[in-house]
Every structure is written in structure tokens, then in C-alpha cells.
């Protein structure tokens, strides 16, 4: 995911430095490291707590459980990538949970017309709803909070009406497999090889481009590290997953979505303008950017990803129930915020949002393994969310 590590500063020093002892480190980097360290701490905690006779090294990170965790995370992760775009543009979407229910339900209802129709209609419905809500925000000047709060209620109502309150089982095997299937181990390694090749290619291209524009080239050590570290992580991950049968297909889909999201946010003018609009809408407008068009685009993009998330979720559960997806909007927003996205707009990265989704999924999964009561789970997740933002604000004040 190195495409999305830092959408703002390519490799620049940040002036906002935090001091730790005699070490001085940029605040943005400090925050990213802290989140990664927090996640590793959470993992170690659950790993130690799940040691048993059957799993002497702990169950939590065992391939069987970890694959499960990632399948759960895939849905939230896809939603978080879309939510990130909307939040970066200083908007919000509260309706994605209900949209997951509606898009998944319509996919289930149309499955008799074939796989393409079923999956296509989920994505089309998501995009259309996103575009509708986006245009109400952009052209109608209705605050996004209100439009999508209305959507949260209305789309849930629509799927209750269409399904008459019944749960529809998924009969198409391919549809189900999208949410649960494992990629053949051999194919997994081939894809890992392709990914490493892509890492090498982008690093090489980057160095060539720097030379072309007379910028100082990266040192050999940095270049090698840029290639070797991601490559090791990619192969280690695939090897780990292959021990339980292969990389889950939804995880592969999430990686694909995240790469697209990171590319859009970092390398396209569309993404750049979303940051600009979220940072200072007036300055963006005076620089010749159409605010309405880009806000509409962000909502439509999120809508399309909601369609994808609905497919993954419905496939994993194996049926479309009218209350599917409830509260997913909050998971997606929480993932973005824990990952460093500012609700005031202008700040946030795809990598951060995925890290946030992974932390949320780890807490969910770990606490379930430890049979923590539902009530306690909610309280802990809420506290983590508030604490993450509290840390952020405290750091920003010092910086």
C-alpha cells in the first residue's frame, strides 16, 4: 500500500516536529507510527490472551482466525476508502449502512437474472443513490449530515418495503464465494510476485522521473529499502494466509479497491481537489475548481464502493436480510477518524483509513475470541475512538 502512505508530503520534512528525548520527528510520521504501534500492542495482547492447549502460541494471529478477521474487515475497509473521500472534502455520509442493506437486498432479488445483473445492480444502485445524495448536497445546498441522515432512514425503509421484511438467501455460488472464497495458494504467490514487480517498477519510474525533473535522486539504500521491505511483507502475508488454504478473496478485492482509492487521492486532480475543497472551499473556488461537481463525484464514488461492500457482505453472510449493514456507517467513519482523517476536511489518507479499519476489526474479533460481553465491547470501541481523536488533538496543539 505504499501508494497511499502519505498523500500530502511525498517525502518532505514536516515543519511540525514533535520532540521525544533528543529525537525530533515529524508529527505526521509520529502519528502513523503510534497507530501502527498501538495496533501491534493490541495484537500482542490478544495473542497472549488466546494461548490455550490447542493453540500454544495463541489463536488470534493464527491463520484460521486472522483470515476470518480480515474477511470481516474487508467490508468496513471498502466503505472506509469511500468514506475517506467524502470526509476529506469536509462532508459526511451517514447513510452507507442502510445503502449496504438496500444494495445487497436488490442484488439478492435480482440474482435469478444472473450474476452480472445481480452484482451490477448493487453497484448501480449504490452509485445512483450516492449521486442523488451528492447532488442534493452540492446543488441543493442541504448539509450532508441532513441529506444522509434522511437517507439512513429512507433507504432502510425502501429495503424493508421491497423485501417485505424477509431475508433472501443467496443461491448463486460465485456470489457467495466473493465474500468467503480463498485464492489458490499458487495463485496467491503469483499475485505476490506481480505485486513485488509493481513495487520495483514504480520505484524505478519514480527515480527516473526525479532525474528527468532535476530533483536529487533517492540514495541507493532508500531505493533498496523501498523495494525490499514491502516485498518481504507481501510474501510473508501470502505465506501466512496460504497455511490455512489461501488469501481470502474479499481481502484481495479490498486491496484492489484501496489501490484505486490511494491512486485517486494521490495521483489524480480529482483527489487533489477534494483535499483543496476540504481545506478551504473559498480558496479552491477562486482557483477555478468546481466545488459542486467534485462533491457530487465524491458521493457517487462512495456510492459505488457501497455497492461493492454490499456484495462482499451479502456473499459472506450468505443471505440478504433487511437489517443488513446497520451501524456500518459508524464503523467506516470511526476507521477514517482513527486513521487520522480530520472531520474538518483536508486531511486523511487511504492507508490511514485501512489501518483504522484493521484496528477496529482487531478489537471486534479479539474481544469476541475472549468472549467479552457485547455491552463491554461497545464501550471499549467507543472509548478507543474518542481516545484516538483525543491523542490527535493533543499532539496537534503541541505541534
Amino acid at each position, binding site marked *: 500500500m505504499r501508494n497511499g502512505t502519505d498523500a500530502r508530503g511525498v517525502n518532505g*520534512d514536516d515543519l511540525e516536529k514533535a520532540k521525544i528525548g533528543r529525537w525530533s520527528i515529524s508529527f505526521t510520521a509520529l502519528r502513523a507510527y503510534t497507530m501502527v504501534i498501538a495496533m501491534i500492542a493490541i495484537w500482542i495482547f490478544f495473542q497472549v490472551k488466546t494461548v490455550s492447549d490447542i493453540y500454544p502460541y495463541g489463536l488470534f494471529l493464527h491463520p484460521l482466525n486472522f483470515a476470518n478477521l480480515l474477511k470481516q474487515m474487508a467490508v468496513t475497509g471498502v466503505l472506509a476508502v469511500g468514506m475517506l473521500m467524502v470526509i476529506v472534502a469536509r462532508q459526511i455520509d451517514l447513510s452507507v449502512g442502510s445503502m449496504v442493506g438496500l444494495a445487497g437486498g436488490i442484488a439478492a432479488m435480482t440474482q435469478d437474472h444472473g450474476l452480472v445483473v445481480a452484482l451490477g445492480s448493487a453497484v448501480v444502485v449504490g452509485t445512483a443513490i450516492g449521486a442523488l445524495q451528492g447532488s442534493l448536497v452540492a446543488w441543493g445546498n442541504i448539509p450532508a449530515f441532513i441529506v444522509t441522515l434522511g437517507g439512513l432512514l429512507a433507504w432502510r425503509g425502501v429495503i424493508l418495503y421491497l423485501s417485505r421484511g424477509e431475508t433472501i438467501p443467496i443461491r448463486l455460488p460465485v456470489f457467495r464465494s466473493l465474500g468467503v472464497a480463498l485464492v489458490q495458494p499458487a495463485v496467491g504467490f503469483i499475485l505476490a510476485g506481480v505485486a513485488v514487480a509493481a513495487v520495483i517498477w514504480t520505484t524505478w519510474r519514480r527515480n527516473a522521473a526525479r532525474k528527468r525533473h532535476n530533483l536529487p535522486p533517492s540514495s541507493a539504500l532508500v531505493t533498496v529499502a523501498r523495494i525490499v521491505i514491502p516485498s518481504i511483507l507481501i510474501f510473508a502475508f501470502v505465506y501466512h494466509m496460504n497455511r490455512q488454504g489461501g488469501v481470502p478473496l474479499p481481502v484481495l478485492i479490498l486491496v484492489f479497491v484501496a489501490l484505486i482509492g490511494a491512486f485517486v487521492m494521490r495521483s489524480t486532480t480529482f483527489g487533489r481537489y477534494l483535499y483543496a475543497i476540504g481545506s478551504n472551499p473559498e480558496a479552491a473556488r477562486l482557483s477555478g475548481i468546481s466545488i459542486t461537481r467534485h462533491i457530487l463525484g465524491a458521493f457517487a464514488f462512495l456510492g459505488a464502493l457501497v455497492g461493492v461492500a454490499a456484495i462482499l457482505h451479502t456473499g459472506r453472510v450468505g443471505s440478504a436480510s433487511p437489517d443488513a449493514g446497520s451501524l456500518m456507517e459508524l464503523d467506516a467513519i470511526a476507521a477514517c477518524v482513527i486513521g487520522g482523517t480530520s472531520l474538518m476536511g483536508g486531511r486523511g489518507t487511504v492507508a490511514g483509513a485501512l489501518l483504522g479499519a484493521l484496528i477496529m476489526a482487531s478489537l471486534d474479533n479479539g474481544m469476541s475470541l475472549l468472549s467479552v460481553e457485547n455491552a463491554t465491547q461497545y464501550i471499549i470501541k467507543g472509548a478507543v475512538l474518542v481516545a484516538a481523536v483525543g491523542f490527535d488533538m493533543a499532539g496537534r496543539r503541541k505541534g
Partner: protein
Amino acid sequence: MTAMTALLEMREISKTFPGVRALDHVSFDLQRGEIHALVGENGAGKSTLMKVLAAVYPAGTYGGEILVGGKTMRFSGIRDAEAAGIAVVHQELSLVGEMSIGENIYLGREPKRFGMIEWEALFSSAQRLLGELHLDLDAHTPVGHLGIGQQHLVEIAKALARDAGILILDEPTAALTESEAEILFAILERLRKKGVGIVYISHKLGEVFRLADRITVLRDGRTVSTDPAGALDTARVIARMVGREVTDLFPTAVRHPDNVVFEARNVTVEDANVPGKILVRNVSFSVRRGEVLGVAGLVGAGRSELLMGIFGAHGGPHRGEFFVDGERIDIRHPHDAIAHGIGFVTEDRKKFGLLLDQSLVTNMTLATLALMGKLLVHVDAETAAGERSMRDLRIKAPSVFVDAMTLSGGNQQKVVLAKWLLTNPKVLFLDEPTRGIDVGAKQEIYLQINRLAEEGLAIVLVSSELPEVLALSDRVMVLHEGRVTGEFTRSEATAEKVMACATGQTRAA
């Protein structure tokens, strides 16, 4: 004034901001039943002096002494000043639009009984106050439903509700229509008869001479003079306001303007919030290749609105015909203006110019990316462009990747300038390009303006600093209340002539 104790006396007030001496031993006094006008150029220290009086800057942060009714006062906050009977009506409104007139007038001082607000008492006394001011308004009307002018009158009512003995009005007529201004003048006359002391800050010398008993002129943070209004005339006041020599802060340049690049005809701009209030009326001008056209005028003359209207960025109704290189162009959105080669360094860089929490390179390439309509950002190409601009404009920053908020004001202003130069404009609008930056940075901006003009750019320069306009412009156009009141060539333009036009006298050439 005689042995009678002054209502208010400010003795030897000095106030320093980092790097700037805003007030230098300024003395000022006010008698009961007097209107004392305070005039001076933008930045002369009028507002700072009144902020000292109103304890926006509390005791201890300034030098000198304040006496009210002969007693030395040390206000530690705005509340103390209010308690001493000092009420300020600022240029910016401090009303809550959603609340009624009555609620606004008594906001924070609601009449209470057993801890509960007595609404009947509140509204009846508010209504009585409105009646005393001859304002035909219902105290229950939400303030947001009123026009801006009426809101200012409510603001004045709010100040009077505190039984203020000292009333400070800062540019009270800037937002008023003529008839609303008449209402205000009538109110002030009645207050004067009641013995209220009024400090009247205004750029409009016509009003000043009509109302004031005495006039104090401030310049560069010092008192130039205090005289009875009868002993003065407009010309003398203007001379005292501008009487400053233009130092060699300004680099000299010889330019040879070429053919006309940009022309605007009959630009009219209306207020976005008050339908029918005209901010700019039938203004026409043109600017040549390699020429700097200065636009002078006082705050509220409609200079920024003129540029915003042309640029397609004004929120309210606006019309006019625009020509670039002789061809008629249509501007509906800033994007159209940029596409036709117009660049606009807007005033207030933090509000309109910069993405403060984004990198310098993001800021600098923003308008260019939008102009090119490209889909992809080539990070390395834009980094190279950003670093080139940084060298050309001598922007001081560790790298192009730091956030814009970390830079000093002068360097921030250069980043905004870089943004527009990267779009390769034919004509560049500069609105207050040196506001709030230090003298060194100002001079660098002046050098850039000269360099750009020499390279053939057409520049329209709006500035409230008269010496700046006079030194940099090949021609000066003066606006007053949205109209052109004068136009001068470089050799004709003098501070006195321009200021006379800016204060509403039309040019007697």
C-alpha cells in the same frame, strides 16, 4: 475646553505590537455632549486607540493613562469598560441573526426574576428603546430578516441599552444607505443633546464636517492635530492625513506600456445579501501590457467587489462586459477568468488564498491543475515547478512539502503569487498584496510587481496604502462608494488629489 472635567481623557497612550509601534504617545479627550471625530488613513492607529479604550487590550498591555470623569481607570477586560459606560459599535456586526431584535439588545444582560428571563420586560423595554431612536421596527423581528443597514442601527441600539455615556462608532455608515445614514445622524444629534460623548471614526469627510465638534487627525500612530471642526476644511484635513514623505521603500521603474490587454466596461456589482444595494456602479477601465493600474479608495469603496465581480467570484448579482486582447469574453465562474488569462491574488490570503494545511506545492499548482483540466497529477513535474517558483520568488521555507501555515505572512503571500504566476496570466489582479506583512517582505513584493510589469504582464493593483499605489502605478483610478471619482497618470497623481477623490469629491482636474 475649560476647567470642566473631561468626560474621557486618554493621556500619552502607546501600544506596541511585535515589530510595529501602533500608537506613539497619543492623547485624546472627549467632553459631554460632544461628537469628536477621529480620522486618518487605514493603519493610522484609530481602531487600535479605540480598542485600548474598550479594553480589548486590557490595562498593562499599553502605556499611558485613561481617565473617565476625572478618575483613572484600569480596565482588565471589556466588561470593565462597559461598566464604566463605554460602548463600542464595531464595523463588524456582533448580532445573532437567528435571535430577535429584543433578545440581541439584551443578550447577556436579560432582565431576570427568580433566575428566569422576564420576556415581557425584555421586549417592552427593547420596544421603548427602538421608539426613542425613531426606528420603526418590531422588537420580535429576527435580526437576520433585517437589511445590513438596519442591523447596524440595531447594533447602535444595543450599545445605547447599556446607558453608555461614551459611545464609539467605527465607520458606522459604511454599510448604510443614504436614508439609513440620515436616521443615524438624527439619532446622534439627539444623543449629543442628552449629553452623551461620541467618538466618530469615519473616512467620509463630508459626514465628519457635518457632525463633528472637534476633529483629531492620526497618522502613523501619532496625533497630528486636534482642532475645532470650524477651524478646519477638507483640504487641510486631507493634507494632515497623508502628510508623509514617500521614502525609497519603493524601487523605481521605467515602463513602456504596450497595447490594451484587458478591458472592463460598465461593471456593476450588487450586494449578495441586500438586494438592490449597489457596491460598484458602472465602472469601466482598461489596462495595457506592461502597465500597473492602481485602484485607490477607502474601505468600502467597492474595490475588492469590482475585482471579485469581474473574476466571476462575487456571490451577488453582477454584470459588465469584459475584453481580453480585444475579444469579448464570458465569465461565469473563476475557471473562465483563469482560462482567459486572468490571475487574482485575492485579499486576505488566509481566508481566500491559501490551503493552510496543505503543502506549498499543492497550493502553488492548484490553479494550474484546474486550468489544464488534466486528470492526473504528475508529482515530480509539479514538485519541480514548485521548486522553481520557490527560487524565482525567493520563498523562504525548508522545502515545498511543508504546510502553508508554517510560513511567515510575507512568504505565504509569495506562495499565493506563485500560484497565479504558474497559470501564465496576461493580466494579474492584486488585492492588498502587502497587507499584514513586514517592510522587508513588502519591498520584495514591490520588486516582483516591477519585474512582472517589465516582463509584459498587465497588473491591476488594489491597495489601501496610498504611498504604495502612488509609487507603483502608471495610472491611478480612484473609487468612492462604488463609482470612479478620479483618474490620474503617474505624473498627475498626488496623495492630496487622490485622497480628495477617495473621500467623495469628484475630480476638479
